[in-house]
């Protein structure tokens, strides 16, 4: 590795700070990277300028099993005897990104990243990403539907439940498509259109949206915040509610 693209990584590859894998990638517009150590340390950086030294930021460390999985992918990549340098192509595309990947003590330069990344390298990155996956947060969705509250249990990540996608977007996306709200009855005062209870390690986070547009969040620690939804966003929530016969679904979605 050379100059700004590699100094920080190379300095930390030996001794007690034994490096398993590191990469730095980008072009003159943006650079990013990550590195994983045998003791579980996990650091990343992202910067706009090629001339800036990376400011490595520590993230929650990996456990032993995760390190084993990542190390296994790294060793598989080492066994593949990849070349030290992979060309960006002939001719290389404009503004191609370049990556410098360190597998234990082996350094590989890859032009036209990530398009030209060998499958073995991609598997290392996938292994890191897989080990970062957050355990699903269980949630309960209480929805005003056709004159009654329907409660649905979700034991997986909401992103995996297709029937909730429209409502998830209406609740959490900052911009929604404009549109009319469908006609329908509102719940009694004090009953929200939607109440979602996320059961986290520290307690329950509760989000409620009321027919008058109030959006109330109560954090696990008890703090409450309230804001008012715009007309388009409230209409999107109503459309999402009206688009599904929630009472016809099984009470546990996953």
């Amino acid at each position: 590795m050379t100059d700004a693209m590699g100094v920080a990584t190379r300095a930390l590859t030996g001794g007690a700070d034994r490096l398993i894998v590191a990469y730095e990638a980008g072009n003159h517009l943006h650079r990013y990277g990550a590195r994983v150590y045998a003791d579980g340390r996990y650091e990343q950086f992202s910067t706009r300028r090629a001339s800036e030294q990376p400011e490595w930021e520590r993230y929650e460390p990996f456990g032993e099993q995760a390190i084993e999985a990542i190390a296994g992918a790294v060793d598989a990549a080492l066994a593949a005897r990849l070349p030290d340098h992979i060309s960006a192509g002939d001719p290389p595309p404009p503004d191609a990104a370049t990556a410098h990947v360190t597998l234990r003590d082996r350094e590989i330069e890859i032009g036209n990243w990530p398009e030209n990344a060998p499958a073995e390298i991609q598997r290392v990155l996938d292994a890191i990403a897989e080990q970062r996956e957050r355990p699903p947060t269980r949630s309960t969705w209480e929805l005003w539907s056709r004159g009654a509250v329907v409660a649905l249990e979700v034991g997986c990540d909401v992103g995996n439940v297709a029937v909730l996608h429209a409502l998830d977007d209406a609740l959490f996306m900052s911009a929604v498509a404009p549109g009319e709200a469908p006609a329908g009855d509102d719940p009694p005062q004090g009953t929200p259109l939607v109440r979602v209870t996320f059961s986290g390690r520290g307690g329950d986070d509760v989000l409620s949206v009321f027919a008058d547009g109030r959006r109330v969040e109560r954090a696990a620690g008890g703090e409450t915040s309230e804001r008012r939804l715009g007309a388009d966003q409230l209409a999107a929530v109503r459309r999402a509610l009206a688009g599904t016969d929630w009472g016809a679904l099984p009470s546990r979605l996953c």
Partner: protein
Amino acid sequence: MIARSVLWAGPGHPAIARPDARSLWRAPVGSDSIRRVTTEPPAARETEAAPPVEQPEAAATPAAPLHAGIGNAAFGQMVAAGLVPGVPFGAGNATLARMLSGPRMLSREELPTPAELAEADAWAADGIRRGTDLTPGAPGAGLNNAPGGFDAEYDPATGELVVIMRCGVEFTDGISRAGVARPGLQNQLDRANAMPEPQRRARLAQFRWSEDKSDAERVAFKSGVETQIEAFWGGRHEFFLRKRGWSWLGATVRIDLQVADKEDVPDAHLTMRPVKVPADVSLGANVQPGQLENAQDQVMNLSSNLNASDNFLNHRVTFGVNSSAVVGAQATSLQQVIDTFKGAVQAGRPGVADTRSIQTPVVLTGHASATGSPEHNQILSEQRVDSVADFMSRNGFVNVETRVGGTGVGDTEAAGGERAEDRRVDIVVGSGGSQNTVAHEFGHAFGLGDEYANTPLVSSGLGRDTGTPQMGDDATHDTLVKQMVDAGGTPLAGAVCEPTDSIMSVGDVVRPQHYATFHASLTEITAQSPWALGPPTGRNDPLPGGAATETGPGDFPVPARGEGDPVAV
């Protein structure tokens, strides 16, 4: 406190007035006779040099001293102010160009003949010329070659070249609903995963496009690309047909982007893949140029943030208390600026600029902290400017005497007290402007290559085999640029890779060379040449003389633009 300018020119380097509004005053460097001149007088000084212009348009005998030393901007200001006798208020570029075309008497042979005019009339009467799926960048060579891909139309009646590019957008989530991050965004996913679930969901939603095609962000992206790129790339330069009797035929350039969802544009020239990110997240961009002869297989990877930009052109050096010495880490830092912006040199001739080099000017502004007397601080700030210029001169910056100027402002901008950041020299390279990432990438989509180079402050340490040009490499559009001519018929020098304020380098300036693929398209679809840079002449006018070559590759007549418009040369 009056701001002063300090200029440098050693013995044998007489002061040179660049034909540019940013003209600099110069005096011997490192000597006791540094000339300090107030920065006020460009227009007045230039006006004094301008003699009355009395010739009628058809037989212009214009102001030789004017075109020897004054750029369009300065001259335009002078005209607007009524400072140029003989030039009517509101005179356009065409009139001015004709006036500047050469101090000589015309012979009858130089005037168009009735037969030539009739031939041009007949050609123009045939109406609009069209070309579809053009790849004007294909003849380029070298690193990063991009063929471009667009349609083009030229209408002789309106004198307009319209570059039409259909863009199909594939909206791409930065982090998918399933929680998979695109390259470069894993850290953002990890950060979001550490948040409580409601905040996490809200944060991750910012990395996703709505699936609804009428979603406001999707609509804003498409219209934003059209508005931004059409304004940025259109109307910066114009052409005229440099043939006797035909030179009244001009071609302004208008960009017509037609941006829609990919599925609605099956014949798109460019596929855009904007990766959705919040405004506080940066992501790189590039263009996959596709096959050289295929006008419809380009792909642009970019972020959803159309305002993403980077500034490479502003730097600073700081000093010790009451010191003007450039030492230690500051010397290292300044050396990086020098090595990045010194300009391309001729092979085997260090210090001699490549004829294609932009030779971007550099402006230094010296500052002092608020401690001490104002008089002393003024002198100190000027000494700091001198010191930086001297360091640049001794450490490889090419043509310091003609490119570098400066001013000391004393402590007039100091915050108070003894602050390190007040003891500095600001270094502004060229326009000093930020480069909009999307505007740069569209240059590739139009068929231009990169003009930046591997230097300490740009893509440091990367070689050609990774796709990074080296200082002095030919830009891929070099050959196309050499096929362009100025108003006088002189070919442009070409395009070379070096960090400058050019849009295809690391800045924001659209120079004539960046119209090379538009020029090639105009030539192709009209089957006429040469289309020269500059405004058209009057119908019965002779061809303009060749006066512009002395100003270098970047300085040619440009269309009049309103105040506040982006800089174009």
